[in-house]
């Protein structure tokens, strides 16, 4: 079953069928029982009527008059029969309606006052209801005899009644089921309408007709649509970033290529060519490195779980302790335990790794990494700060360091791009700011302020 309506319809139908079926069965049973007891009452009344007209003849025998109050006893095959047996089971009297028939032998004579009632079949297959009533009759003073009065009626009447009841009962029940299912189908269609709308809107987003899902969805769907919107926004930002990065890369490779070409065309000496090659290869390498690291950034991950900052910072500090083992640096972490980052783990590592590595390069003995959560205008923020006790960075040099591909430490290959990469990550990907200043240890203080998208559910949930 791959559709909600299908599932709901099947479930509801099963429940409805079970419920209505059971109701039908109970009603049927109740009707049958009450109809049967009505028959029993009627037969009992007939017995009393017969008892009323019984007489005793001169030989102390029981007799009944020729003309009975109930005409059907007198009409053959009328459907109402009666007979009377004595204690030995001999027939003492039979109603004229029993002409050419006999009541099935039932029941045996019991004690006086006993009533027995049962549906039975006559010899010719007619279904009958039979009631037997045993009485003790005073035929003479202080002389009693047991007689069993039996009255029978065909079931045809009863069965007709039963079937007509059943017909209308099940007819109505079926009609009710149909109507209920139809109503339920309509309700379903109505409640699932927003889902169909989401699907339609997503298709529209795919085809570029709209940029986001609308916001007027039912409460239950809103987390889904909000998150979908976040995903859509993220993928759009990513796409834009990739496009920009590709453009940047192509452009930044053009300059060294142009220099090389002009060197070729101007008929430079082999030595000059060699020099130009060395310079431009280095430049291209730096560009590629920088763009690669930029491209690796994932950005704030929509729907991301909060990532605790402290364990990650410790991992980086442990790693750097190893790398700078010779210099026996004092690397410390001052991070509140509840400090979290919303985004890709790799990005946070990139930011912390580059900042800390940079600080280690310049530090004399000490580097401190700090992080704390902040909130601004209902947006979650994270502040990362790295202090060292090195010479510090003069304010006029700071912008230079942050420039693309500018090398912070020209003597150590491949690392100068660190700060620029961090700046890009912080400012372009996490909408924050990177500031360079002087710290409490006397050296440089680099502070990154990251801002996370205010995604209602996210910020509120994890604060």
């Amino acid at each position, binding site marked *: 079953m791959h559709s909600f309506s299908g599932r709901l319809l099947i479930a509801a139908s099963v429940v409805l069928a079970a419920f209505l079926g059971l109701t039908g069965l109970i009603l049927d049973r109740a009707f049958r029982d009450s109809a049967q007891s009505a028959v029993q009452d009627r037969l009992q009344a007939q017995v009393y009527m017969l008892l009323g007209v019984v007489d005793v003849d001169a030989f102390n025998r029981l007799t009944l008059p020729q003309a009975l109050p109930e005409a059907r006893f007198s009409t053959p095959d009328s459907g109402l029969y009666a007979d009377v047996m004595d204690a030995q089971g001999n027939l003492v009297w039979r109603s004229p309606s029993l002409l050419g028939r006999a009541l099935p032998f039932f029941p045996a004579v019991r004690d006086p006052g006993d009533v027995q009632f049962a549906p039975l079949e006559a010899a010719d297959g007619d279904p009958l209801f039979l009631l037997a009533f045993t009485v003790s009759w005073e035929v003479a003073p202080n002389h009693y005899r047991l007689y069993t009065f039996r009255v029978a009626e065909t079931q045809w009447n009863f069965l007709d009644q039963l079937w007509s009841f059943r017909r209308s009962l099940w007819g109505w029940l079926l009609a009710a089921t149909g109507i209920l299912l139809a109503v339920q189908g309509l309700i379903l269609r109505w409640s699932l309408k927003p889902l169909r709308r989401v699907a339609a809107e997503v298709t529209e987003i795919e085809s570029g007709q709209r940029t986001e899902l609308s916001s007027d969805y039912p409460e239950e769907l809103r987390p889904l649509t909000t998150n979908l919107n976040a995903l859509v926004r993220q993928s759009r930002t990513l796409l834009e970033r990739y496009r920009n990065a590709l453009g940047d890369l192509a452009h930044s490779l053009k300059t060294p290529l142009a220099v090389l070409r002009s060197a070729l065309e101007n008929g430079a000496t082999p030595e000059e060519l060699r020099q130009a090659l060395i310079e431009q290869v280095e430049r291209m*390498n730096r560009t590629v*490195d920088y763009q*690669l*690291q930029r491209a*690796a950034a994932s950005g704030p991950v929509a729907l991301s779980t909060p990532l605790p900052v402290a364990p990650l910072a410790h*991992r*980086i500090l*442990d*790693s750097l302790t*190893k*790398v700078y*083992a*010779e210099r*026996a640096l004092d690397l410390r972490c001052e991070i509140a335990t509840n400090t979290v980052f919303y985004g890709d*783990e*790799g990005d946070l*590592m*990139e930011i*912390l*790794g*580059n900042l800390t590595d940079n600080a280690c390069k310049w530090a004399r003995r000490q580097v401190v990494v700090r992080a704390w959560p902040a909130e601004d205008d209902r947006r979650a923020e994270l502040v990362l700060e790295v202090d060292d006790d090195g010479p510090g960075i003069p304010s006029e040099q700071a912008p230079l360091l942050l420039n693309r591909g500018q090398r912070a430490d020209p003597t*150590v*290959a*491949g690392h100068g791009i660190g700060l620029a990469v961090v700046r890009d990550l912080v400012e372009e990907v996490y909408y924050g700011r990177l500031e360079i200043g002087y710290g409490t240890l006397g050296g440089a203080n680099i502070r990154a302020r990251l801002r996370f998208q205010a995604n209602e559910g996210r910020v509120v949930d994890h604060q």
Partner: protein
Amino acid sequence: MRILIIEDEAPLLERVTAQLREQGYAVDTAADGRTGLYLGQEYPLDAAIVDLGLPDMPGIEVIRRWRAEGHKFPILILTARGRWQDKVEGLEAGADDYLVKPFYTEELLARLRALIRRTGGWTQAVLHCGPIALDTGAQQVTLDGQPVEVTAYEYKLLEYLMLHAGTVISKTELTEHLYQEDEDRDSNVLEVLVGRLRRKLDPDRTLNPIETLRGRGYRFRLERAAG
């Protein structure tokens, strides 16, 4: 110094191998993870250079296995991806330093020398023992500040002895760490080299920097200078 390089990119492997040999290192090479793992398990290495992206078995896995088996030689990882996640993962697996490709050979050599020194317990690039100083960067030896002329082999021998100053080093260990597989491993050559070093470093026979322990090997017996 015996170095293992595991690198699947043939031109790079050749270049680095040639440059290391030029510097007097004995170099073993492997182009895939499994071979590299085996060489590291079997050979007495002074350091290993491991590329992270290897066929057969990732470099990280090779490093993890070595460390799990208790091999202590320093490891330098090479990685084309400069991501911190990769660096941290490599260092956590047991590597001691990393280098991002492409790199300058000078830098590789400097890092390697630093790692080997660190393993010997030295923190400075110049090893000072009494009046003798050995500059691992410039590969120069001085006695009381005066340069001493040594051949490449003599330098290698002295460097190894001084890096492990204070410990007894057997002749087998010396040959294993100093010579390439295919080189002549006659132990007489070693004795001759030690003799020449003694004459150059201790012309008036008062210092006796290298002592011979009969049947056990050699020991550089001068105290390391602090720092």
